[in-house]
């Protein structure tokens, strides 16, 4: 199934891209996708990375076809 991935800030810089579409197996959890992409792109300081699945912060959710998963570095608003 296809998952739409978005990268922001420092992570986008490390990954060298702002988004990509990944083909993944059914039943994959957000946290598994997180671990995989952190390894793929050697993303620094993984504990500081939050995932938003369809705009909700959550890594304990099973992904579905067409989900939007955002990789978010620490917030710096204000």
């Amino acid at each position, binding site marked *: 199934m296809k998952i739409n991935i978005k990268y*922001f*800030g*420092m992570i986008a810089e490390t990954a060298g891209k702002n988004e990509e579409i990944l083909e993944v197996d059914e039943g994959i959890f957000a946290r598994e996708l997180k671990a995989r992409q952190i390894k793929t792109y050697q993303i620094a300081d993984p504990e*500081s990375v939050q995932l*938003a699945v369809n705009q909700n912060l959550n890594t304990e959710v099973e992904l579905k076809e067409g989900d939007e998963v955002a990789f978010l*570095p620490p*917030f*710096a608003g*204000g």
Partner: protein
Amino acid sequence: MDKKKPKKVFMQGAIPPEKIAKSIANHQSKTNIGAHSIFLGQVRADEIDCKTVSAIDYSAYEEMAEQVFHEIREDAFSKFDITCAHIYHSLGEVKTGELCLFVFTSSAHRKIAIEACNYFVEEIKAKVPIFGKEIFEDQTHQWKVNK
């Protein structure tokens, strides 16, 4: 009413001081207001390892950020007896000395306006997916993290 209307928070570049004057002037017809509290974030020329910040380039996960701003507003209106609340945040480059955040709360009484304004500022810093690239004078950069 004011509460329900979806508001656009992000604006391109620095927030001009005139925008603040205009927001204040827009509230002079609301004669049930007794107090306004305003918070402004300004980009600091921090020195890090002998290099000086000259600007912050803000980006955001905009769709999610607008949704989180909306939730923060809903929470604030349920927690505090405020008359109105406005938030503006910059995207793109904001130079040192320029404003990147404008929070504006109004109430009949001062304590409520002040508490609500603080609530917004803390919630925004903690919960909204906004990212800041601190650009040094030599054009190198580092990524800002909120404390």
